């Protein structure tokens, strides 16, 4: 404790409660999962050591591979859409007016709502017989599909609902980023004869890239773990077209009694998230500009 210096020693006391929680409920389970991934365990009988057996089985597991592909499909659709929409919202609302304040609150509201509530609400709105979405479409003469029950539309619906929920979160981060950029930079650009389009791409956006990186990392980590909305909206269907990795983990752990196998899946998922995050930070030098 000497290395903390006497005046700073107290912080450890304040941090201790959350640190304890973190150790007991996060670090310890992670360690347990690491050990378990080398065992076969059905919770009822003693764990049996299987070496790399779980990982070898995982390599040939078509269901897991399909879930991984669906997760990547989700990411490919969700991450770019929510970033672009969040950024556009932030740019539109980046001014001081009553309307902009109200709009910010409105767009941020879905972020605060619980996923279960949001997903159930959308499940009704997307209902093919009584849903408001298809009713609106019918007003313009379009017969809407059975969104959550058709293979071509189910994943698109899940992505759409996710974008709707999270765009406000991305917007808030970008708004904070925009607020940190001094107005002089843009003014200077305009004095030099730039049009708004050029001013955005040459001045604002480069200065915003640290926030873009942050948003990207957060979205990637979250979207690899996509689960609640899928579970409620489609339960992995139709025809297994929306099964995702976390859904496989939950099923194996709690329905199939395959704790070890599920732990192995968690570690594979972690490896994916970890390497993507490392890659993102590694390549940031190419496009992220720090310092205004």
């Amino acid at each position, binding site marked *: 404790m000497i*290395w*903390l210096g006497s005046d*700073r020693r107290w912080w450890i006391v304040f941090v201790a409660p959350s640190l304890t929680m*973190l150790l007991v*409920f*996060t*670090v310890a*389970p*992670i360690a347990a*999962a690491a050990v378990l991934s080398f065992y076969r365990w*059905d*919770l*009822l*009988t003693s764990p049996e050591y299987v070496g790399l057996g779980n990982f070898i089985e995982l390599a040939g597991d078509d269901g897991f591979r399909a879930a991984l592909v669906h997760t990547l499909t989700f990411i490919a659709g969700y991450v770019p859409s929510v970033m672009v929409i969040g950024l556009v919202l932030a740019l539109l609302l980046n001014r001081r007016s009553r309307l902009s304040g109200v709009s910010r609150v409105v767009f941020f509201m879905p972020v605060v709502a619980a996923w279960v509530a949001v997903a159930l609400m959308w*499940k*009704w709105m997307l*209902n*093919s*017989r*009584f*849903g408001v979405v298809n009713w609106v479409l019918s007003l313009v003469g379009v017969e809407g599909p*059975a969104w*959550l*029950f*058709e293979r071509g539309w189910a994943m698109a619906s899940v992505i759409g609902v996710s974008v709707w929920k999270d765009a406000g979160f991305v917007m808030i981060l970008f708004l904070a980023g925009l607020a940190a950029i001094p107005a002089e930079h843009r003014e200077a650009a305009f004095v030099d004869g730039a049009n708004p389009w050029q001013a955005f791409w040459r001045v604002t956006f480069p200065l915003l890239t640290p926030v873009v990186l942050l948003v990207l990392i957060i979205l990637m*980590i979250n979207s*690899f*773990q996509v*689960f609640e909305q899928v579970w409620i909206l489609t339960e992995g*269907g*139709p*025809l*297994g077209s929306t099964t995702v990795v*976390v859904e496989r*983990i*939950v*099923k194996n*752990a*709690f*329905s*199939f*009694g395959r704790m070890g196998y*599920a*732990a192995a*899946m*968690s570690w594979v*998922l*972690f490896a994916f*998230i*970890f390497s993507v*995050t490392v890659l993102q930070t590694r390549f940031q030098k190419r496009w992220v500009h720090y310092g205004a």
Partner: protein
Amino acid sequence: MKTTRRLWVLLSVLVLVAAACSTDDTTDTTTTQTATTTEAPGGAGTETTTTEPPPSEEPTTIRYFTFSAAPDNLDALDAMIVAFEAENPDVKVEVETAPFDNYFTLLQTQVAGNDAPDAFELNFENFVTFATKGTLADLGPFTSADTGFDGEAYYQPAFDAFAVGGTQYGLPASYSTVMLFYNQDIFDAAGIDYPTDDWTWAEERATAEAIAATGDNVWGFFAGVHYWEFYKAAWQNGCEFFGADGSVQVNEPGCVEALQFMIDYVNDGVQPTAAEMGGVSDGDMFLNGELGMITTGIWMFSGFEGADFTWDVVVEPGNTRGGSHFFANGVAVSAASDADKQEAAYRWLRFFTSSDEAAKIRVAASWELPTLTDASLYDGYLAIEPPANREAVLASLENVVVPPVIERQAEMQDALNGLIERALSGEMTAQEALDQAKAEIEALL
């Protein structure tokens, strides 16, 4: 300063790792759930038995874990416990409940944590898994020492279902079954004769077509296209998943035909597709007057009570032979409990499953049906209408089908449901789907 910053970095890394690993969150919630449900409705019955003069020793307290009692039948369970404790002042029963969807996860977790309840409920499908893994106590020593025990009092197929390899690991507590329900108003309007208890598939199909032809928003029939309906339809068509030698026969012609029969209802527009239902449940569609007939469980009796049309039930039609679902719930004693708790738990379960008092309370509450042969117990039940033909519930016991069960049950059901869905979508033929089902089931054995 530098060290502090390093610590912060370390902490942030930990937070990131925490955020990245989602299974652990799930594990955490389960633990907390266990903690909260253990404190659930326990009390009421336990408190009431202090009237008896206290025996020299402390009463043995046992924990009983159930899914079927909560939330609707807790009063009935409490009444049973009061009656039991009056007869057995040396035993106290503490109730723990969980909803069916979480029940087995919680039970597994408790077993894994060496905190298994002394007595607990198991449905037949999960019973085999728990029995073969050594978590259940052999009831033989208790039943043979108990002069009041009468195995014959139970409906025998149910009693036998809770034994593995000649060892009785559980007692049957209750059962429910599935019937063919029909909307009499739709039949009357179309001038079609009502179904009867001795119908076969051909009559069911022809009638369903006739009803479907009467209007755009009326379908003739509904039965779930999934594992539970499929093994029963297969049985009705003379095909079983497993042969006497344990070989997998799920792709035999009888089974393929049964699956094709189920799928054709949907493909031919006699039964609504999932898209046409658009998330409305089959029971609600029946209540909306959109289905002429529906295959569903007797647990829907209360839900259909308020229907604004007249409905009734018949025994489900079979093809080459009759066959009705038999969903049995049993109860068992934990192998991990102390001997005195096991003995007390056994006495409670014997009372719960076979005493007249408990059976009467159960029937009066319509909490499924007791698995006892004494017909007089059902008098009150049969008098309730609708449905008028309630006797059909008992008649359906003449030909029962129990689910095909393996140790890796949940995975088998999951695999079959996926393949049945593929066959339904037309992505595979019934034959292809069941050929693959055979391979997948064999891999699970």
